[in-house]
């Protein structure tokens, strides 16, 4: 006569998973809040230099008052010698121009104006106010940036931003 029954094989009770959705939703909301949408995957490789005290571009992004422009080594190396200094431009939201045109700063002017026209009227800031953010590779020659700057000056898009990697905060 034992007080402890040893009768029969018992199955281990299943883990209660009814709170799993809650946990996953919590994770989901965290990621929704803490991240911002990715822009187009550029077809050029860009390693940004580091800097401090840089301004956060997120508010401008949310109001779509900013256009991004990449300067980097093209991922497709086969046509490397076609580009001046071996660096190519990548403009967001446009189909890639043909390789011959890739490093032609005239494209910048057309791209900027096209993007400006494409915006709905209610979001239209004067072109002067729309920032052009240059994300350049740390080894990219600065001359390219000044070429772009000259083009922007011609069409009076007078705000330029130089992107850096900045992990600090104010």
């Amino acid at each position, binding site marked *: 006569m034992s007080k402890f029954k040893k009768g029969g094989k018992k199955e281990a009770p299943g883990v209660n998973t009814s709170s799993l*959705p809650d946990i996953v939703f919590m994770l989901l909301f965290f990621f929704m809040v803490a991240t911002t949408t990715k822009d187009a995957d550029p077809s050029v490789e860009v390693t940004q230099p580091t800097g401090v*005290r840089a301004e*956060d*571009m997120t508010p401008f992004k949310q109001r779509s008052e900013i256009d991004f422009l990449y300067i980097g080594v093209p991922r497709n190396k086969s046509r490397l010698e076609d580009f001046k200094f071996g660096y190519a431009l990548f403009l967001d939201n446009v189909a890639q121009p043909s390789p011959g045109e890739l490093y032609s700063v005239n494209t910048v002017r057309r791209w900027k104006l096209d993007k400006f026209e494409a915006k709905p009227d209610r979001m239209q800031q004067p072109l002067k106010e729309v920032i052009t953010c240059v994300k350049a590779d740390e080894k990219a020659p600065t001359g390219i940036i000044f070429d772009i700057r000259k083009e922007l*000056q011609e069409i009076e898009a007078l*705000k330029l931003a130089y992107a850096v990697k900045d992990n600090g905060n104010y």
Partner: protein
Amino acid sequence: MAKRDIPEINAGSMADIAFLLLIFFLVTTTMDRDKAYIRPIPKKVEITIPPEPIQKRDICKIVANSRNQLMLRENFVEDPDEISELILEWYRKNEDLSAAETAAASLNPQHPGFEFPFYNRFGMAEIDQNIERTTKEAEEIEEVEDADPALIEYYWAKVSEWEKKKKALKLYGKSELPEISPQAHIRIEVQIKTGYEYFAKIQSEIEEALFELRDEKAQELWGFGYGRIITTLGNEPTDAEFTQKKALLELLYPARIIEVTPKN
């Protein structure tokens, strides 16, 4: 009839749905924020009047050549991190001189601050006089028939500049508003093949120096840092008090940066 239990909805697949959404967000978003230095591009003008000569002391020239060597005011800089210190020195050298001391120093080449920009000081009376004078000038220009609208705008801009100074001085709470020489600027000269890394480093150092100057002044005047002003304005861009504080700090330590287009 007995009450029938309403069958519960099977929530077992809820987790799957949530996971799906989660993975979607993981893939389409990114953690890092875009950070950048905003720099205005000057408007294109056809120069008709030759520009006034600028004194050497008013230029803080930073040069980076195609071999990525740095030079600040004709001295080589071994460590790029030193640039911000040197800019700070350039801003601060003559900041605390009184009007009489400034006048004496500007004539004395032996003075340690002779090669650094001097500060002008404006009292309230002087600012009021200037507002009056510039308003009169602007009104006169407006009277002229077929005056160039750009010219009129230029004259009114002068008036609003003085009005800004008046507001700033009121907020500053002292008898005089120090202002760095209006010609003083930081000049970045690079070559076509200078790496972007160095150009960005120079911009970063300038920003660091300006932050430090403004931060220290904010601490002294109000007991909190410049960072707090920036963050508050980031969340609440229309906050009147902080907008004015920022304007004052920017007037005391203006970010006048000229980027010279490289020729070779």
